[in-house]
């Protein structure tokens, strides 16, 4: 199911402000790619251009190409709604639908595409919850509201919801920043398992996390506040953390700024 992402010459704007400038990169299928960089460098913005969520923000606008295998997400006639079915997303703060049960949360995406059969739905819900390592904790209370779970459980519920529709790519926007260390560890383990099935892109502020979970790491930076963010370099994680080719990357990683 996993697909390759190939970005070329991508700019994203908020109104007339250019938030990211001329980004090109390739993300291979079944890998985990981490985006790191100081606050405001546009890594989250860039992530949101990969499933056309950026244009949901008022004034949000994108130029350039994002190829998902051989299709341009921004090509003429492409429906953003179908793009988001193919490219799932997990957000910074766990956001299960507060009025829905655990079961309904996981099934939410399926219901949209019209899966009607109860048995089919049950299977997918179970599979997704197992895939998110949550099944054992919630199997006895699927009818309870999702908002009653702990933060870490909620986040895994959101992951289950995202993978239930079998996307090709999974985007994660700082998925652990609102969680405690134990929950964070659980999510990191999960990411390792999920990459067997999905192409994963994760934005993180935590460099140890990037080092732990990712195969490739991209470093973003901006020249100054008010300037657009840029991709400084992307390379194998090991290399980025041991021997980056750009000085700024090394400075950032060794904690000299950011």
């Amino acid at each position, binding site marked *: 199911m996993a697909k390759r992402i190939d970005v070329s010459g991508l700019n994203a704007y908020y109104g007339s402000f250019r938030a990211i400038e001329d980004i090109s990169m390739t993300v291979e299928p079944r890998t985990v790619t981490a985006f790191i960089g100081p606050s405001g460098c546009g890594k989250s913005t860039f992530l949101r251009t990969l499933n056309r969520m950026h244009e949901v923000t008022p004034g949000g606008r994108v130029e350039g190409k994002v190829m998902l295998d051989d299709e341009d997400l921004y090509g003429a006639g492409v429906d953003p*709604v179908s793009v988001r079915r*193919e490219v*799932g*997303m997990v957000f910074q703060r766990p956001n299960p639908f507060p009025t829905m049960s655990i079961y309904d949360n996981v099934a939410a*995406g399926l219901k949209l595409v019209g899966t009607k059969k109860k048995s089919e739905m049950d299977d997918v819900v179970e599979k997704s919850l197992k895939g998110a390592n949550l099944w054992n904790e919630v199997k006895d209370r699927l009818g309870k509201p999702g908002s009653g779970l702990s933060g870490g459980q909620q986040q895994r519920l959101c992951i289950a919801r995202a993978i239930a529709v079998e996307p090709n790519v999974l985007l994660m926007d700082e998925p652990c920043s609102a969680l405690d260390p134990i929950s964070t560890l659980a999510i990191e383990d999960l990411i390792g398992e999920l990459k067997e099935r999905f192409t994963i892109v994760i934005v993180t502020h935590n460099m140890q996390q990037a080092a732990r979970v990712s195969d490739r790491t991209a470093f973003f930076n901006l020249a100054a506040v008010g300037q657009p963010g840029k991709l400084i370099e992307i390379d194998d994680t090991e290399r980025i953390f041991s021997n980056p080719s750009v000085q700024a990357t090394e400075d950032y990683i060794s904690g000299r700024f950011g």
Partner: protein
Amino acid sequence: MDISTTKDTPLPSTPPPPAAEEKRAARGATRPGDRIFLGLSRGSGIFLLAIMAAIAVFLSYRAVLAIGKDEGNFFTTFEWNPTGNPPVFGIAVLAFGTIVSSIIAMAIAVPVAVGIALFITHYAPRKLGGPIAYVVDLLAAVPSIVYGLWGALVLVPQLDGLYGWLNDYLGWTGIFEWQGGAPRSMLTVGILLAIMILPIITNVSREVFRQVPQMHEEAALALGATRWEVIRMAVLPFGRSGVISASMLGLGRALGETMAVAMVLSSSFEINLSLLDPGGGTFAQNIASKFSEATEMGRDALIASGLVLFVITLLVNGAARLIIARRKEFSGANA
């Protein structure tokens, strides 16, 4: 802003438990200035309660006087003749008319108001949404007498065609039968009330929809939901209780509306199954229309009917407040 922090004690010392604080403030206020000021402000609060109590007591008192002389059954009589000998009057027709006109008003206003609220928050171009919201805000301030004037002189003449139509196609139901009189009937009242309560329901619903956390809408979007599906999954469930309480507030207004109804309705003291033929009346309209020719007995009878209206609006508004309060607790617990 969190209420608990804003209500925190202004005293410099560590805050005592809330219940004890008032007593302490009273006892500790040795200065005459402090004592007087506390007395004044507490007195005002008590005065307010006293007014509410007085409304209930005095209306009941006059109502009991009137109902005691009523030869008919106050709740079931289809007649309003408190000055006759013997006096006979009952609120059955008024209750029927009030309920029917309010139901029509709600049936029209609630869906349309929810539509406008969604339009402002989710559909209109951003540059349009703000000004529209502002205008709707201002329209909520237009006095009912002006709605009445507009209803009587502009709306009523426009309704002939619609009434004929309803009669042609739906006349067989009995509800939409029309004898061809001036369209000053319950349906007209309902339409006018709907227009009047539209701004208030829209305003409250709009606020609720605007408070839907961005992250819930994004969650739905990221699952590949269309705009309508986002609204159905994230916005409407979140806003449901808010819309209900907004509707109750609107209902409270519709129930008590006086002048606009009095100006467009051609009232009579009979229950008419057809909504298009003149007939019926509402509590408030009946008070306004019958007041000028009423003797003291007549006024007491009107006060008795006003008491019923008072109780009904209390219940409706109380229910709305309860829903709002429950919702606050709910969202607070999940914040």
